[in-house]
């Protein structure tokens, strides 16, 4: 129990530290980066809840981010604006204008409901088939977002989402996500699920129950994704379906994988590491573009580097930075060893 508390303490202090440091420097750019980082934390932790405990890669995760974002948008865009932003929106929804905080929760809920409705058949698939089918689910969600113009404004950008997400809100949700992810991991469902993750015989012995366990984990992860998506929507105030597709999936997956998919600490640390690396690389990219070293715009450098990093980590340390044990476990064991030897 103690090591869990230590883990929570360390991870949440990272978030708090981030907020404090950003407030102290008082630079808008850093505020933006930090807020994005906190939103990423919510998303990565959501992915960790499913992938870390079940061992299955869910490529569909970002699709649920989109569901959350669009749900919250439809419910919170001021009624007067809705006429312009979503002219064809169904009258029932068009008349509604919720506070963004409710919108964010609604986004999470709707995402979780959709996940509950759609995903059960996928939970009985073998690992490779499941991954492939989740990938297809992502594409389908994307297609729906792209074409359901009444709700999403189609492939065009949706404007008018009220700006409600600031660093404190995002950090608050990030902290909540850390607690929830760890709680789930150590809960009965989480422990049972993890026992099936690597041991095929154990999975077979549990039979159909594995599907139910996975399903529960998936719903929880979709809740995180929906909330994260809505948070992001209220931060950026305008978006289009292409924000919820492969590129975003790649980045969030990279964060999780590099940090360590099996641990909550890994998810958190991975998000921090990749965000900082990304921002650094992006600065390099724009520096190169400004200096006009190449005739065309340098684009995609950050993705290429991230891809190489992911391949490298998989080759050298496939479990990620925190492959097996949470940071609390590592620290308490070290403390105990020191105590024992002294």
């Amino acid at each position, binding site marked *: 129990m103690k090591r869990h508390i230590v883990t929570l303490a360390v991870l949440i202090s990272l978030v708090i530290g981030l907020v404090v440091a950003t407030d102290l420097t008082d630079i808008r750019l850093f505020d933006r980066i930090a807020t994005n980082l906190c939103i990423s934390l919510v998303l990565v932790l959501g992915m960790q809840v499913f992938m870390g405990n079940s061992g299955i*890669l869910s490529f569909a995760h970002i699709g649920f981010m989109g569901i959350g974002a669009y749900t919250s948008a439809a419910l919170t865009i001021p009624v007067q604006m809705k006429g312009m932003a979503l002219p064809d929106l169904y009258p029932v929804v068009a008349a509604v204008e919720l506070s963004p905080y409710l919108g964010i929760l609604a986004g999470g809920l709707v995402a979780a409901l959709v996940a509950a409705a759609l995903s059960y058949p996928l939970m009985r698939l073998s690992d490779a*088939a499941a991954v492939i089918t989740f990938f297809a689910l992502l594409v389908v969600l994307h297609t729906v977002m792209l074409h359901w113009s009444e709700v999403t404004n189609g492939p065009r950008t949706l404007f008018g989402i009220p700006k409600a997400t600031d660093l404190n809100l995002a950090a608050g949700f990030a902290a909540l996500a850390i607690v929830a992810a760890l709680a789930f991991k150590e809960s009965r469902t989480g422990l049972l699920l993890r026992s099936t993750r690597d041991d095929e015989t154990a999975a077979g012995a549990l039979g159909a129950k594995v599907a139910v366990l996975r399903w529960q984990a998936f719903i929880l992860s979709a809740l995180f994704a929906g909330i994260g998506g809505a948070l992001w929507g209220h931060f950026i105030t305008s978006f289009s379906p292409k924000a919820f597709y492969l590129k975003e999936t790649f980045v969030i997956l990279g964060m999780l994988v590099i940090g360590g998919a099996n641990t909550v600490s890994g998810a958190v640390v991975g998000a921090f590491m990749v965000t900082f690396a990304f921002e650094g690389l992006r600065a390099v990219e724009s520096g190169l573009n400004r200096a006009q070293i190449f005739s065309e715009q*340098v*684009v995609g450098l950050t993705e290429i580097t991230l891809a190489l990093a992911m391949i490298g980590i998989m080759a050298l340390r496939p479990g990620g930075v925190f492959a097996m044990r949470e940071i609390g476990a590592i620290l308490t064991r070290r403390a105990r060893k020191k105590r024992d030897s002294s």
Partner: protein
Amino acid sequence: MTMFIQFLIDVLSLGGAYALMALGLVIVFGILKLVNFAYGELIMVAGYTMYMVSGLGLPWLVMAGIAVIMAIMAGIATDYVAFRPVRAKSVTAVLITSFAFSTLLQNAAQLFISPRPRTVPLPEIFSATVEIAGVITPARNLITIAAAVTLLAFFAFIMKRSILGIAMRAAATHFTMTRMLGVPANLIISSAFAISGFFAGVVSLLWIGRIGTVVPGIGLEPLLIAFIATVIGGMRSLQGAVLGGFLLAFIDTGLNYSLPQELLKFRDAFTFSLVILILLWRPQGLMRGPATGQRT
């Protein structure tokens, strides 16, 4: 009656393309138990090769040949970059590296060639139309059917008769035992990737032949098709992949014909729902693969 023939030609030509896509994916999966996310990019490589050699004034078949060779080489490169470094590690690790490699290739194309579509040369015969039993259809469709049938038959022959094919089927069941009979492991693996690249190259010609241009993301749709065809067909079975391809083409074409106009753009969502129903009924796919105790 003409409607039926039209439907049949559409299903067969689409199914042929889908079956080839699926086969290229399954051949690596069956032996190595690894999902190759970078498969779509092999199609992209072939497409961009066609674009890059288009100015050289070579006959189309020669350009096509070069494109297919490049796809084969890219397939083998995928093995060295994304698979060999992590093969001993978990299955998830390989999924991630191949996904990363896929992103890398796409971004490289974006960076070094262009993010905008580039035209790919096509032979005139592709756009010529042909009349069969009262139905007018692009010659391309018939060529696709012919190519698919020929390649599938040739592939089945190789797998059944040649020593390499036998070795590959054996390796899919029990890799180590195959090595213990003296068959070099690396040869089997490289052959699988090369064949995968070959199919990707051919598919590329047929697939891009419908659009005429290539973009960095062109591999995504064929990849998805290959994925779904493989999953419904049964991931361990080569015949299953072919069956899955034709079934998927049947579903897609059927929906094309039957969905009302406003719902047509959601066709993929409907296809996917049907796929989910199939998977609910048969989670392991429609065809049983080689008998082993291992999970897929």
